[in-house]
């Protein structure tokens, strides 16, 4: 545990990628195999199921530190991280570690702890706290409360493993993806080909695109490129092997159960196939090939739920727009030119012939100028822009420049005034960085969006200082602020919503700039927002998900 806590300390404080990479390699060099496997699991989002809830942890901490709940909350909002708050509040331990457990030993106990009585949990956790230093307590708490968001990307993890094992990064990326259980697999099994072959659910690492950086014309001969619409759903892979169907999201979540629409593919697809595409809510249109995407908010009603009701199924039916074919007849097609993969994909989609399953349409264009004007229609199509793919490109691993580019349309924008502020988390702790914005509705202000990003550190510091000087009231961690600062918000889409006072929900709102040149009475109105809603969104939403009143 000591080694792991030290690793976290280096990763959390180091500002340089090379130093982080070295720290992970050093850890691999000294840690035993069971700890390595857990470390890989934790850093790739395979956190053990929560066995001790945060209310219990808070309670024990308050008891040991002898502080009241409000003071705990006050501290938590300043620190911005529960695990760290507890580590800072607990009384200092004088004694050295009498019973040092390893990372995997702690995790194995935590795995068993979920079913136990609260006093058993308390005994284990508080005695663990009593034998650790502050940094170890922080890391131990993180094991119980949440993921390790400490600036280690999947890519960095893969590179460190590649350096340690001598296996190439793209092979490593494939081996650590998918369904494996850190409690039962060994490090050498995970790194072996046998494991990859044995796990027939395993998806391929997704090939992801960067946003295009220069003029499209710099891409050269348009004849070498394929253009498709970019859809705003969840990127996914549908896989059938050994007569079983698997649906994976790009976030490496197995989502097969969430989309019963796809169940029929278990019969219709051949074995040994992997199709890459977009999981997306589609309005039913009688004509065969046509489809109309619903806003992302419709798909949201389908994810994050255990049981899906009939109502949700009918209000937000889910389809699949197929982009690529990465495996066929059990063979890895990733090295094949995209144009050839696409031909095979078209044949299969045609044979299956299901109304929810579409081949991603290719946009015909002869020169870049023409494509530029076609791109302007994206929002009308319910798309967020274009994808450009080199026709002879391989299906690569991870985010790569060169062969695939995304070319999104400019976001929608609106000017709004900040009315509430709250302290941020992580590197924004003790700084007011989470804001709620309002537009005007007659004489009143109506809140419609929250945004956390888009300002520079310097601007955040200025706004923070404004909030501290101009707060009107305090509701728990939230301050109401004098409505004075005007910001331009950018967002990707807008949908009707009865969960928000304003009646609209924005997609990906963020601050695009601070309008220091504008006064609060010069902001946009609720009517402006509703105009946008009418103009951009509802043309296909025959049954908006939440327009029931």
């Amino acid at each position, binding site marked *: 545990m000591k080694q792991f806590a030290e690793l976290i300390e280096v990763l*959390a*404080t*180091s*500002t340089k990628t090379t130093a982080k990479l070295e720290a992970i390699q050093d850890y691999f060099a000294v840690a035993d195999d069971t700890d390595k496997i857990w470390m890989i699991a934790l850093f790739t989002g395979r956190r053990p199921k929560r066995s001790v809830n945060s209310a219990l942890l808070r309670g024990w901490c308050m008891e040991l*530190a002898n*502080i*009241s709940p*409000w*003071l705990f909350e*006050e*501290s938590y909002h*300043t*620190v*911005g*991280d529960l695990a*760290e*708050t507890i580590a*800072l*509040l607990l009384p*200092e331990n004088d004694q050295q570690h009498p019973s040092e457990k390893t990372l995997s030993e702690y995790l194995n106990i935590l795995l068993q702890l979920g079913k136990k009585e609260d006093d058993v949990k308390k005994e284990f956790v508080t005695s663990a706290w009593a034998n650790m230093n502050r940094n170890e307590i922080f890391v131990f708490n993180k094991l119980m409360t949440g993921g390790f968001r400490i600036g280690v990307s999947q890519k960095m993890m893969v590179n460190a493993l590649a350096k340690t094992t001598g296996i190439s990064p793209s092979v490593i990326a494939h081996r650590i993806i998918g369904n494996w259980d850190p409690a039962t697999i060994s490090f050498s099994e995970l790194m072996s080909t046998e494991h990859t072959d044995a796990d027939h659910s395993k998806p391929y690492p997704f090939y992801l695109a960067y946003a295009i950086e220069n003029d499209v014309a710099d891409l050269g001969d348009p004849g070498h490129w394929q253009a498709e619409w970019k859809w705003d759903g969840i990127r996914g892979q549908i896989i059938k092997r050994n007569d079983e169907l698997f649906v994976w999201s790009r976030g490496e979540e197995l989502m097969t159960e969430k989309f019963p629409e796809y169940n029929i593919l278990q019969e219709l697809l051949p074995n040994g196939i992997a199709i890459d595409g977009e999981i997306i809510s589609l309005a039913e249109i009688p004509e065969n090939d046509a489809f109309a995407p619903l806003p992302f908010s419709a798909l949201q009603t389908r994810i994050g739920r255990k049981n899906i009701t009939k109502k949700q199924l009918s209000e937000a039916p889910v389809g699949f727009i197929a982009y690529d074919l990465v495996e066929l007849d059990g063979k890895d097609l990733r090295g094949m030119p995209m144009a050839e993969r696409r031909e095979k994909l078209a044949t299969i989609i045609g044979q299956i012939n299901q109304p929810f399953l579409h081949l991603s349409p290719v946009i015909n264009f002869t020169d870049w100028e023409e494509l530029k004007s076609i791109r302007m229609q994206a929002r009308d199509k319910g798309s967020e822009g274009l994808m450009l793919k080199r026709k002879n490109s391989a299906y690569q691993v991870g985010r790569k420049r060169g062969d695939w580019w995304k070319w999104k349309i400019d976001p929608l924008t609106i000017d709004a005034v900040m009315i509430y502020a709250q302290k941020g*988390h*992580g*590197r*924004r*702790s*003790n*700084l007011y960085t989470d804001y709620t914005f309002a537009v005007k509705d007659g004489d009143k202000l109506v809140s419609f969006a929250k945004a956390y990003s888009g300002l520079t*550190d310097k601007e955040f510091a200025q706004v923070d200082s404004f909030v501290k000087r101009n707060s009107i009231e*305090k509701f728990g961690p939230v301050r109401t602020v004098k409505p004075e600062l005007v910001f331009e918000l950018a967002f990707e889409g807008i949908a009707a919503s009865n969960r928000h006072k304003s009646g609209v929900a924005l997609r990906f709102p963020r601050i695009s700039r601070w309008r220091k040149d504008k006064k609060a009475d010069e902001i946009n109105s609720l009517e402006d927002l509703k105009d946008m809603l009418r103009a951009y969104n509802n043309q296909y939403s025959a049954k908006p998900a939440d327009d029931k009143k």
Partner: protein
Amino acid sequence: MALIEFTDKGLFCPAGGFYIDPWKPVDRAVITHAHSDHARWGSKHYLCHPDSKPILQLRLGDNDYQTLDWNESLNINGVNLSFHPAGHIIGSAQARLEYKDEVWVFTGDYKTEDDGVSQPFEPVPCNVFITESTFALPIYKWAAQESIFADMKTWIAENHAAGKASVFIAYSLGKAQRILKPLAETGIPIYAHGAVYNVHQAFVDNGWKLPEVRRVTAETTKEELKGCIVIAPSGAEGSPWIKRFSPYAVGICSGWMQVRGNQRRKNADAGFALSDHADWEGLLAAVNATGAQKVFATHGFQSAFSRYLNEQGIEAAEVKTAYGNDEEETVSEEQNQPAP
């Protein structure tokens, strides 16, 4: 009538007719210490501790200064004023006001740990205690100075071994003097930024014995700077002045480094939670030692601190003041240049 009133110009003593640490120009200003948020420009008359005077002269220029030493007292219109060590920086004082059997104390900024440089904090019994509350949450518990100094030395040794300079970001008045001794013990030459050097020299000229620091001049060679120690204020980060020490690592010395999010935000290579303010336990100990019947908490987590004190049976209220912006230091262009 209250002995001290909270006005929009600062803390005002109506009976004595003077202000303490006013943030707007006034006729008579009593100054607890020379940090810029407590000692501001434009007043007609300044009263301070003798050790604060050279820094006020350096920062505010020539003015009408009067000094009052420890164990002295001054009668101003019937109000007895005296200074008592606050332990925050060299010369930092608590102001004690006595009038008709009532005693009020304003702490200015203070810390309860003896840092070996500043005159150590002395609790002063009083009826009403006006305390700072910069770090008034139980998450702020400082490690002993010796253990932080040991961490700093280990960090310097690692940097030195890797051929890197160790740049310490520290407030030029206070923290810079406090860390000098442990840094000097490494035997590695210490270079001071202009802002740090000016304060340093003002103390040396007034008889303070401090370890030697060097200035970078036009003649200083790259070879001399390799692996050295640097003390600079936060305003110097990212300046050309700092870049000359490349390769280097940056370590920030501040109580805010107690929380890792702050450290990440500052993008520092290391954070040392070394503060010149009292931590939670220090604040509580100070309040208890005064035996005050009423406490006012200012600049910091004043609402949490006053609420906590009320729960403990000590009558307390929060007061808004304009103090507490001393963490970010502005540095002039001139100070970012090498010395002539």
